[in-house]
């Protein structure tokens, strides 16, 4: 039993780091633009399928695919910004408008994936000799370990960007108070476009990593990841990018520990119950400040 729990904790932490990065991608859009990207998981799936095709066509591994998919998604993000941003900001309730718009986008992506890649589950061969190994008593999946390491690197890069660069400081300033920032002469529109690109570049990383950490991808899996992303960012605090890491860890641990004690079919339940309870008692999240917008 002790070993089972230890293993659950290790795998919970590994998955939690990945979930955290998934959350950051969604949260940075929300923080800067109040855009609720309900198509987050579908974008991830799109990235995963691109990794699949890159592997089939050019023999690239999922890790190499990241380097290709990331710039593509960055450009996609800037384009989406140009398409939707103004319209959404002008509507009566931008948050709900963005939520519904991206729900529409999620349906479009799902149907495109279904048309291009069909409904069969797909998988990308792992680029490792050993798919899993024992570290002491703990059974580790190489794919998940590598994914978690890449996520840590990505989070470090994002933190560096947010806290050490000029533009990153502008991003944080916009999250704090977008009206004041535009008075100070920061081009909110341009920073938003950049953030949209970065947000989707993060999605690209997580999408490619999904093919490493999970055995197969299917077109309808996107919804699951959108749910996870929501949960993670609500746990960590909407609009607090690094809070997502904590949210991800809490969720990853809750998920893996509950799978030790509960039947498998019920383990998603834990996530949703945490979400509902969290929003009801502490809508600003574990790390979030009290927001005036709530």
């Amino acid at each position, binding site marked *: 039993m002790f070993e089972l729990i230890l293993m659950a904790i290790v795998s919970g932490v590994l998955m939690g780091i990945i979930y955290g990065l998934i959350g950051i991608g969604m949260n940075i859009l929300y923080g800067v633009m109040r855009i609720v990207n309900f198509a987050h998981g579908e974008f991830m799936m799109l990235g995963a399928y691109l990794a699949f095709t890159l592997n089939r066509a050019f023999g690239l591994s999922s890790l190499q695919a990241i380097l290709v998919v990331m710039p593509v998604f960055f450009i996609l993000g800037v384009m989406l910004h140009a398409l939707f941003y103004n319209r959404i900001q002008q*509507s009566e309730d931008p948050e*709900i408008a963005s939520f519904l718009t991206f729900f529409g986008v999620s349906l479009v992506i799902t149907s495109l994936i279904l048309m291009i890649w069909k409904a069969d589950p797909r998988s990308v061969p792992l680029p490792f000799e050993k798919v899993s190994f024992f570290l002491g008593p703990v059974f580790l999946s190489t794919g998940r370990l590598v994914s978690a390491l890449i996520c840590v690197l990505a989070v470090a890069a994002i933190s560096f960007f947010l806290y050490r660069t000029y533009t990153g400081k502008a991003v944080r300033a916009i999250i704090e108070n977008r009206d004041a920032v535009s008075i100070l002469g920061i081009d909110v529109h341009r920073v938003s476009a950049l953030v949209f690109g970065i947000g989707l570049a993060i999605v690209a990383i997580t999408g490619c990593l999904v093919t490493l950490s999970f055995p197969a991808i299917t077109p309808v899996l996107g919804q699951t990841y959108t749910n996870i992303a929501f949960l993670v960012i609500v746990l960590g605090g909407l609009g607090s990018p690094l809070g997502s890491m904590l949210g991800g860890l809490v969720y990853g641990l809750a998920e893996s520990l509950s799978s030790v004690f509960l039947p498998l079919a019920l383990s998603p339940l834990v996530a949703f119950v945490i979400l509902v309870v969290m929003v*009801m008692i502490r809508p600003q999240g574990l790390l979030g400040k009290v927001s005036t917008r709530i």
Partner: protein
Amino acid sequence: MKTYRKTTLSVIVIATLFLAMVPVLPLSKPYFFYMMFWITMASAFNIIYGFVGYLPFGYVMFYGVGTYVTAVLWSRLGVPLPLAILCSGAAGLVLSLAFAPTLRLKGIYFAIVNFASAMVLRIVVANLPEAWAGGSFGISLSGAYKPLASYYLMLALTVASVVVGLWLSHSRLGIALRCIRDDEAAAAVMGINVSMSRLKAWMLAAVIPSLAGGIEAWFTAIVDPDTSFNLMSTAKTIVYAMFGGLGTITGPIFGAVFMYGLDDFIWGRFPLLNLLVLGVTIIFLILFLPRGVVGSLIQRWPGLRKIIE
């Protein structure tokens, strides 16, 4: 005031007579059944989103619980169907009261929590012992299959929900709800009981889809968790209501009739495109036509308010 009431009422009477004739005419009964079903869903959704401004993204749960209560009561306890359907309505009411605390939340928080709640209910229902709720295979009601009776029951519910919407938009409650939607603080200062008015609308918006769920379970004679708690049902309800125009009475009806017709047409010919069209329609509606067809017409020619509502 009086003239348009006459026009509206006569339109409702004519439409009702036509729909009542459908079973004897050489027309597809399921087609018109589902048209009425979507009119009902969109009109009820309009009460909570159009009038109150709350977006319940897990709206399907009221419908889903309605289908299951009817199916379980009839198949496991032998409750007669009309009574079981009434119980579905009661279950919707109970559910809305259980989720009443979520009305404290606003905007996207409310939408997300409602959505998550619908997911929870779906998982719970799918994992109930098979002897109770049939597990993931669901429950068959083929022994009670009576398409004609359920068709007319749906007609009654559709007319009722449209009339309720019409009544609401002129009632004290409806006016209070619009005030709250536009400026909550001002409404509270004017002496409107904000949370009570909101709760009433929420309960109303919950009972109707639960009843519709019960009737629909009877009509199709099969209930399963994936259909009963399908996110797409919420999506379609939102799109149909928005397409016509939220906050108007004719809007959701027009939206449901038109979009359901389009959906049915596409679904029959290009099943894969169905999802794509739904997605593109949502994007287009939100970005370019947030008021919907009827809403935009009224905004452009305010005089139209006298004839359509």
